[in-house]
């Protein structure tokens, strides 16, 4: 059986700008795979190529072993798609819209049960344009799964959702996976990838920069992370001077004028040395924290930038 998704050497351009740059990745079946990256990393473009909306400029894309452009009509009934933003008539009522998409499929889910599960029960007669952002997102998700697809592509599924709705969505995506559905999601929320994904594919500037389970990705390399945020901008040469104090094997990355991150085999004594360095260099810490290595740290190490601040 071919993998759920197979991307080999994909290149996508918008005019001069290269959105996806020689990307290769594989999504195994029956998994939740998160494509993680900052805004503009090429996540949506990659997803839309899998959905057959865009033709690869170079390279090969296969979904369930099919060419998403040339074999689109064969593929479409087998995939579920949740687009970023809208995708419904502004005057259509929530349940009416869901019923409509269900009618296009041969063996749809029980629409009322699905709506109840996603908390759409109380807004069933509300026209789409008057749904809240979170309700629109949940309806989009319902529309993606109602046809009982083998694979669902969800683009930023929880963007703009409150905590409760986000948990409901995660639970549903996990349940899909447990029923044998392959879930491919894009996200720029690290917590989402950590909580939900069996496999994380980190993309930056249209390239795959790391791939593995959340555990695999956070286990290697540094063991801990210290984050330092100060009240006034650092003096020039601060990272170099701090690195000299901390010694070998410890990496110091300045994120912006007032924050930096220290990674490596850091412990309490490292924390004390950072604190002393602050005192000697007359910088006042606003916060100084020691934490377990997270996907955020992996991203920072790989790119020298922060992915997100929430």
């Amino acid at each position, binding site marked *: 059986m071919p993998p759920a998704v197979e991307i080999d050497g994909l290149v996508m351009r918008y005019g001069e700008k290269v959105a996806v740059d020689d990307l290769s990745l594989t999504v195994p079946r029956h998994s939740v795979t998160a494509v993680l990256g900052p805004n503009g990393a090429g996540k949506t473009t990659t997803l839309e190529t899998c959905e057959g909306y865009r033709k690869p400029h170079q390279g090969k894309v296969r979904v369930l072993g099919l060419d998403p452009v040339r074999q689109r009509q064969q593929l479409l*009934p087998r995939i579920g798609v949740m687009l970023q933003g809208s995708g419904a008539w502004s005057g259509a009522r929530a349940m009416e819209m869901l019923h409509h998409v269900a009618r296009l499929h*041969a063996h749809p889910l*029980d629409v009322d049960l699905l709506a109840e599960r996603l908390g759409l029960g109380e807004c069933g007669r509300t026209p789409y344009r008057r749904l809240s952002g979170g309700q629109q997102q949940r309806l989009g998700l319902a529309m993606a799964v109602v*046809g009982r697809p*083998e694979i669902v592509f969800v683009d930023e599924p929880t963007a703009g959702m409150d905590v409760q709705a986000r948990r409901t969505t995660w639970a549903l995506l996990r349940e899909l996976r447990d*029923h044998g559905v392959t879930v491919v999601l894009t996200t720029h929320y690290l917590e989402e990838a950590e909580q939900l994904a069996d496999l994380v594919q980190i993309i930056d500037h249209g390239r795959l920069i790391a791939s593995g389970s959340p555990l695999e990705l956070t286990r290697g390399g540094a063991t801990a992370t210290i984050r330092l945020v100060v009240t006034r901008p650092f003096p020039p040469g601060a990272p170099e001077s701090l690195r000299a104090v901390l010694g070998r094997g410890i990496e110091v990355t300045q994120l912006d004028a007032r924050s930096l991150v220290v990674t490596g085999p850091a412990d309490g004594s490292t924390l004390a040395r950072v604190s002393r360095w602050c005192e000697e260099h007359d910088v006042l810490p606003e916060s100084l924290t020691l934490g377990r290595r997270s996907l955020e740290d992996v991203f920072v190490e790989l790119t020298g930038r922060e992915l997100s601040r929430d």
Partner: protein
Amino acid sequence: MTESPTSSAPTRALDFSPRPGSAPLGRQILAQASMEARLMLRNGEQLLLALVIPVVVLIGGVKGGAHLGLDIDGPLVDLLTPGVLALAVMSTSFTSLAIATGFERRYGVIKRLGASPLPRTGLLAGKVLALFAVELVQLFVIGGVGQLLGWTPAPGAIGLMLAILLGTAAFAALGLFVAGVLRAEATLAAANLIYLLLLAGGAVVLPASVYGDAIGALAQWLPSGALGEAMRTALVDGGIAWRDLGVLACWAVIGTGLTARTFKWE
């Protein structure tokens, strides 16, 4: 799916295990058509265009027409009702369709449906079917008002059907062309403006002969003039206006060609 009465689980069982498949194409088209027709008949502005304006034109024309000094034979309502029916077909298949499709593109509806099992041809068929459904409602309402005003239609059922069929084809093709090349707001403006221009000078409600030689000669070749004439021939004389139906067919071919070359689904 069963649920034991003692179960107090907040969520009942949903079987997500994959079972993909498309509904039969006919059923998909019917679903699409009924959805689009409902949305059209529910929307206030669309309803204004589809029913209110034609009915106002009909009543106003019949009541105030005597002062226009038109040189026609027979009762005015017999001439005006077919013209207003032509106007109704034009408003639905051109203006309403263009505006609705423009906003479908804008809100990503067409993109979203592009990832559903409904093929593009099915989407198009659903749209056309929805237009016919709305036109049927218009036929009943406007015909009914006409009857109340004393209209006696000639028995031209075949001519009427051909006029509606080819008129819808021509105007729908042109409406999709406009919706495909312009942004949603520009489509809204253009579709309404073209509708008003054709209503005023397109020989749709009144025959081309009342417009004078120059405009009248031009109007006969417009889809509006041809549709109006085909309706009047069917419902005033009980005949079939082959020349005008031919003009409509030509416009349908031109519009389809333009749309096929330019239309973008997103």
